[in-house]
């Protein structure tokens, strides 16, 4: 399976898949997509990279341990509920801010978006962690 074609193309494909995964994650609120699907795509990218270049390469590229990433995701999703306490609405109610970007443009920042990014981290972290451990030869 580990052919020269795969080894050559895999890094580029991995990068492309991760960009696509982020795209799917961010557009998720209005178009098909979201944190869960985006996370699965990113996890597939990791799997591909792992198969072609080896587990160590993936671990180096990720820098953080995948379990740490997953844990961070849960924390992030949970923390996206904190603003609801400040606004005195039920836990995890969606809260939206308009962040001015200059030139009269606005960027819609919201707690559901932070939550969704947390979901993305959990999915990527958990699945990558399992896959890398399975791939590691003992």
């Amino acid at each position: 399976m580990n052919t020269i074609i795969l080894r050559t193309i895999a890094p580029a494909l991995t990068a492309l898949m991760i960009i696509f995964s982020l795209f799917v994650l961010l557009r998720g609120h209005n178009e098909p997509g979201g944190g869960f699907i985006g996370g699965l795509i990113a996890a597939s990218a990791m799997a591909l990279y792992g198969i072609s270049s080896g587990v160590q390469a993936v671990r180096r590229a990720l820098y953080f341990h995948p379990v740490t990433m997953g844990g961070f995701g849960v924390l992030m999703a949970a923390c996206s509920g904190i603003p609801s306490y400040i606004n005195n609405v039920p836990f995890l109610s969606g809260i939206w801010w308009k962040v001015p970007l200059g030139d009269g443009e606005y960027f819609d920042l919201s707690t559901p978006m932070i939550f969704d990014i947390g979901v993305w981290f959990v999915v990527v972290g958990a699945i990558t962690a399992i896959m890398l451990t399975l791939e590691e030869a003992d």
Partner: protein
Amino acid sequence: MLLAVLSGFILALFAPLLKRFLGYRAGWVLALLPASIFVYFLGQYDQVMSQHAIFEYHPWIPSLGLNLTFYLDGISLLFALLISGIGTFIMIYSGGYLKGHVHLGRFFAFMLMFMASMLGVVLSSNLMAIFLFWELTSVTSFLLIGFDHLRQASRRAALQALVVTGLGGLAMLAGFVILGTSVGNFEMADILSFGNVVKDSELYIPILILILLGAFTKSAQFPFHFWLPNAMEAPTPVSAFLHSATMVKAGIYLMMRTYPILGDTIEWSLLLGIFGGFTLLAGTFIAIRQTDLKQMLAYTTMASLGLLTMLLGAGGEGAIEGAVLYLLAHSLFKGGLFMVAGTIYHEAGTLDITKLGGLGRKMPITFFAALIAALSMGGIIPLVGFIAKESMYHALLHGDPLSTILLVVAIIGNAMMFAIGFAVALKPMMGKLGDMPKQAHEGSIMLWLGPLTLGLCGLAAGIGIAYLGHTIVHSAVSAIGNENAETDLHLWGGINAPLILSLLTMAWGGVIFYFYDKVRAFADRVLNWIGWGPDKGFDQFLALLLWVSQRITDTFQTGHLKTYMRNTFILLALVIWVPMIAYDALPDIDLSTLTKPTFYEAGILLIAVLGLYAVLIAKSRLTSIVSLGILGFAVAILFMLFGAPDLSFTQFMVETLTAVILALVMTRLKLDKNDAKYGMEAVVATIVAIAVGSGFAALLLRVMQTELDMSLSDYFTKYSAAIAHGHNIVNVILVDFRALDTLGEISVVMTTGVVILALIRLKPKNHKHASQKSKSKSKLKESAS
């Protein structure tokens, strides 16, 4: 009142810190809290008298109907005063008794938490809040009994007490739920005003039995009494406070509290009369046999609780008055006697009554405290115990059969307790100096202040009974009976029938005391002859439970993934098919209503079927895994065609990752290349597969034939963009409308991930053997065994 209840929990947090700075003297400082609570409740007395009751409301979780509502009437007031008053001296005594103990700070914290929980029980009006505080007393009692956690006996006793009172608490909860839903109100204060509604309800019997189960387990009524003597493993301040003066009275409180709504029926009288009376007799009889001071006191406590239950069962104003007086007297004398026993142990190093002797000269103050407590326990004028006994005899002298039987039981029980009380107080103190491990001398002021004060209180209550009769006893009896009671009490009521019965009791008690050793030998013989008791039964019950669960585990947990899968799918098939056939809800299969598939839909279906066929004929595992992927992709395309892009998208990714992960698992676990099934195994697998598959098909067809409730879909469609600023409804539901569910799900994903990592890293001891079995479950079993 909120502060009075919660301050104990708050102070408990700081108790270890305080102990670090002040050492054992922290007991004096910590005693200030119960003392000020006592003064606070004393200050409420006038208001309780004039308004009948004080009601206080604090919202907690109003959406669940759970509120901290406090209700202070005569009976709550009496209990609150006893808890905080005795608690004051217990805190001081604990400091002296456990002086130098490493975990004294923790002990103080547990004691304060217990006191706060107990106050919560007697002050709460909301049924759920009563249950909550009730369970908190069980938990703190567990912590205190197991305080000396390095000893196996302590741990067993703690667990036993928790199991028995916990189960009773759950029964009580069930009773409360039935009670609350049947009258449509969960506030005790309101339910009390409903009159006979509960008694006339057809649910009266279940409510009564469930609530009494709670009361009986907590108040150590036969046959649930066995945890109480075992709980004597706890340090003596705990025995004095929890297991004689307060916690075990929670059951009595519950019966007093529910008396207006549940009491005074034939069922109530019989249940309480029989169980209470038997507990009284059994308790005194077993107590006589004991040679350990604390065990003697524990069994007489059980007997006294039986006496209280019996009096409540007899009912009527007189018996309730007797019960209230006896409750007061018992808390004072038994708390005192326990503290005396603790001091003796602290000074002499043993509790064995056959070894103790002649301590009276060495520790005169303790001797005096023990003596007045015993006088009250024996019911001798002018102590409050005497008036309690007179009052109950007076109430039981009706002439009707039940009362007469209970009267005889009460006389026998009181006579025995008279003898045991004096045995506890006199035997260690009088006579020759015993053969004791320690050189005894008088304990510090922290050790004798409590028992002495409680004893003197018993004396003062006896002398000042006329005053008490018009105040606190009056309000308590009125509150229990839910009517204005006549409590005209005198220390000396002239020579009348109760006095003669009282003298008879004392004479009888005196005879038992004189022949104490012979009676003890007799009781010992009888009980040895019986040989079996609920305490043994508890162990046998636990052993049976373990045996049954071992059998069940061995049957289902074979360690073979194949078996788990087969069982799961058989169950799934049953869950689908059985209700569908039983309720005659099979789908109508009418081919003419189905739309004809277009050529591309048919094509995709064909690919799916081909994938399935490939799985079946595949020679190696890897081929079947990949072939299963074909099927999955075909389904994903179908989702896409029928307008579920998110689902389809996810399906594609999941199929891809499943194939990758399964292939990795296969190489990792060094599974055999092929996984062929032969003979019966293949037949069973085929039948199960067809049953589950056709079941799902039938279920989905059936669902399509019912009217779908579209209200949720409509709601989400309508508000997704308007409220949540998102057009992808699926995503909006996931991250906004039902974000809390998603948070739970991603936590599960994360936990599962960590668990799988741990499983993969387990190194099986016998690798060759593991490779023959399938997948990681067997690895776990291997390395565990």
